[in-house]
């Protein structure tokens, strides 16, 4: 490595391959069309090509690759969920994430910081204990810690009891991590491209050809693609795209807002979350404090920001970290989240033959990118619901079999 670096320096040639090849010619036939080139769509294309030998794939996006919620989440990766089904699913994702730099040949800046979910009430302590026990049973590293230990893990935290909501304890999850979210989509897309997958950005799916209960093609502004199978992985637009296939979903589309401060030197190592205070924070590798709260109070397809969000978030954040009062906000934004009633995703087969869905990712999608891609690829290739995805099937709501993750999936409860 040092020798090649030396040679590169001395040769004076600075040309390198473009990260992505130029867009291939738009064809009107493909074996599989994936609608949505976010992390999930790119990952599904990669695993379909790599593990199932399906290479005749077109991935469409109405905007840019990884330009939707993949670029808008707050990059937290963890597996400390509440239900055994959820824990098993997110555990596989964390396992895949840990080896993903090497597999994709891209630096994801995967950084295991440790993750603390603060509890301010007896009820929250009970849920933390419950989650810790389920996690341990499933082989996930989580434990309940008390203020003396929290003080060692995060000395910056205000543990005084002279506040409105004193901290009684926390669920500590050492594998909790953050990563560079854009790189996840880019890495998957580049490796998929090398295996023959064709990406078409700025190409919106405007309709679906469905004949006799079976999907036959995708209508776009650039022509109609005739294909064998279609996977939708479109996050905030899930209901709109599903409607083209004649499907109704158990989803309400609601904005989720977030913000970052100006960058400063490293001071906060762990990721801190408080469900009761509807707030979470981590410090990025660049030094910015990345902060978010709960989803907006009502459905909306607009990614606007509100003062209500910032006031509500900062009120609680300053109680946790009074030193943040000196910080200035640098940016704010919103993502359009597809929220399900049980705070778990909707994945797998649909009533339309050869039409597969990866939706309902609400506020928990980024951390599941690798496992969703891998298992949805399996689902598309085999036309069967993989065991790991069985609990997340669309028809669970008709069977009254929800996977209740409200206590673990978000801070909005």
């Amino acid at each position, binding site marked *: 490595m040092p020798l090649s670096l030396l040679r590169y320096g001395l040769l004076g040639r600075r040309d390198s391959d473009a990260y992505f090849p130029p867009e291939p010619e738009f064809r009107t036939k493909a074996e599989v069309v994936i609608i949505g080139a976010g992390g999930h769509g790119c990952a599904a294309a990669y695993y379909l090509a790599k593990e199932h030998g399906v290479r005749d794939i077109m991935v469409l996006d109405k905007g840019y690759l990884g330009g939707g919620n993949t670029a808008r989440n707050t990059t937290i990766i963890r597996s400390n969920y509440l239900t055994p089904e959820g824990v098993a699913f997110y555990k596989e994702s964390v396992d895949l994430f840990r080896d993903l730099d090497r597999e994709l040949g891209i630096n994801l800046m995967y950084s295991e910081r440790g993750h603390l979910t603060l509890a301010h009430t007896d009820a929250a302590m009970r849920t933390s204990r419950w989650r810790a026990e389920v996690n341990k049973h499933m082989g996930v590293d989580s434990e309940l810690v008390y203020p003396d230990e929290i003080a060692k893990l995060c000395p910056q935290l205000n543990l005084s009891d002279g506040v409105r909501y004193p901290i009684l304890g926390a669920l500590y999850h050492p594998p909790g991590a953050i990563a560079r979210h854009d790189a996840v989509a880019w890495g998957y897309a580049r490796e998929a491209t090398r295996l023959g997958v064709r990406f078409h950005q700025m190409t919106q799916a405007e309709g679906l050809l469905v004949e006799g209960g079976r999907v036959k093609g995708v209508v776009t502004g650039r022509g109609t693609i005739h294909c064998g199978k279609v996977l939708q992985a479109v996050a905030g637009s899930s*209901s709109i795209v599903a409607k083209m296939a004649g499907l109704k979903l158990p989803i309400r589309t609601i904005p989720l807002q977030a913000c970052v401060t100006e960058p400063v030197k490293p001071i906060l190592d762990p990721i801190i979350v408080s469900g009761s205070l509807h707030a979470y924070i981590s410090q990025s590798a660049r030094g910015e404090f990345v902060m978010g709260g709960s989803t907006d109070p*009502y459905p909306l*397809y607009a990614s606007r920001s509100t003062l209500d969000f910032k006031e509500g978030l900062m009120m609680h954040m300053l109680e946790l970290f009074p030193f943040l009062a000196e910080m200035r906000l640098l940016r704010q934004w919103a993502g359009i989240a597809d929220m399900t009633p049980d705070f778990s995703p909707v994945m797998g087969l649909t009533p339309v033959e050869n039409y597969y869905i990866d939706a309902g990712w609400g506020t928990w999608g980024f951390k599941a990118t690798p496992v969703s891609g891998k298992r949805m690829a399996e689902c598309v290739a085999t036309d069967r619901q993989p065991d790991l995805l069985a609990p997340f099937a669309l028809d669970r709501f008709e069977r009254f079999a929800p996977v209740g993750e409200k206590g673990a999936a978000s801070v909005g409860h």
Partner: protein
Amino acid sequence: MKLMRCPLNGERNISEFVCGGEVKAMPDPDKASDADWGRYLFFEDNPDGEIVEWWLHAPSSYWFIARRDTRTEAVLETMTVQEWRERQGTVGSGQAQGQSADSQAHGAQGTNG
């Protein structure tokens, strides 16, 4: 500050209100299958555009109907449940057409029309 007009209390800050979800047609509880009931409870039209919803003015526990645009965040119109019943079928929302006004109203969490 975003405002909403409550039919009982007039214009108030939207933070005083709670969204109660889409106005849906309730199937007959005695005849509906479990699957039908599940679809009624959990499945949403979730349109990107005009939507008709139940809203609650929380401080006064008053339920009413609002028409909103989910793309622009505009509150198009608010009305009492009584007004909604009377106008049903004449408002071109595409929501729950062909359903009786009574089955609409029973879908709310304690209607107050």
